[in-house]
């Protein structure tokens, strides 16, 4: 594993994503759902919304880093608000 140059933060980063994927897989099996059409006018399932959330969060973090540049953890707060909005309206 040395060649992969692991660090604590990257391990946590991937662990969070892996956990989210597992949670959503279990959810999809336990509670099957009907896709719905939200404000993007496309049909989405929970998994789609998770993907939109994660991808959007990456861009939010980059934008925060590029425009504001300090107090990066607050970008995470914006991401959580964004996530809530995506799961509510998309």
């Amino acid at each position: 594993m040395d060649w992969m140059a692991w660090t604590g933060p990257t391990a946590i980063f991937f662990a969070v994503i892996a956990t989210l994927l597992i949670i959503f897989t279990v959810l999809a099996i336990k509670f099957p759902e009907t896709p719905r059409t939200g404000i993007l006018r496309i049909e989405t399932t929970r998994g789609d919304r998770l993907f939109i959330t994660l991808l959007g969060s990456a861009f939010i973090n980059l934008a925060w880093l590029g425009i504001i540049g300090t107090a990066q953890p607050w970008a995470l707060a914006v991401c959580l608000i964004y996530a809530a909005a995506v799961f509510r309206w998309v």
Partner: protein
Amino acid sequence: MEKTVNQKAWFLVLPVLLLVAFSAVIPLMTVVNYSVQDTFGNNQFFWAGLEWFKEMLESDRMWDALGRQLMFSGIILAIEIPLGIFVALNMPKSGFWSSFCLVLMSLPLLIPWNVVGTIWQIFGRVDIGLLGYTLDALGINYNYTQDILAAWITIIVMDVWHWTSLVALLAFAGLKSIPDAYYQAAKIDQASRWKVFRFIELPKMMGVLMIAILLRFMDSFMIYTEPFVVTGGGPGNATTLLSIDLVKMALGQFDLGPAAAFSLMYFLVILLVSWVFYTVMTNLDKKGM
């Protein structure tokens, strides 16, 4: 009542997932690890945090390459899409000549990228290339190794030569699927050629055109081989597109950290466009286009 979605069949792709994990996911995870660290070789790493991302976001080099990349993709789309439609509209609809045209147009698509680059690299040379020599003989100053405009024209014409066929073939498939009844109705209404195109052909081609635009955008956004073979990113950095710049940074300068941060941002853009591509395609499928 709508049927609920059952996603259990996805477990059947687990073996593929394992293979992809080794060929793509684990290397990608390594890139993430590299992007937050600094190294001087010897497999020794030092924590750098978000330093490289910040540096890349503030670097003119990356924004310039992104600008050139968007300009390249924009120009080739603006040429290839209308040209492809025009070619498709003028192709014979059936019979021997139709098949002949289809085969002829598929030929550029079958040529490997580096061969396309080499063809144009030689074609454009002033000393031995047909194009370069002819232009020179006509008194036109054309030198893609020194003149920025000539370099850009060369790589754009090369891409148009290579990929317009794809757009034309897709548009042709779209045109073939329009039932004759539409044209007959237009004739009864005495619609002009333009109106037939605007209100019958264009809407009916929308699905395939969307695929053509997204495919060409993605492909051109990731282009590396052809411009690299022809211009090598020069003159100066004039044709250094994103992937060329990335390779220069990662393998030329061995700046692993910044290159990893750069490639992750590049990857995010590609991921976003791929998602849009996938969503548009599946939605068109549902509408039955």
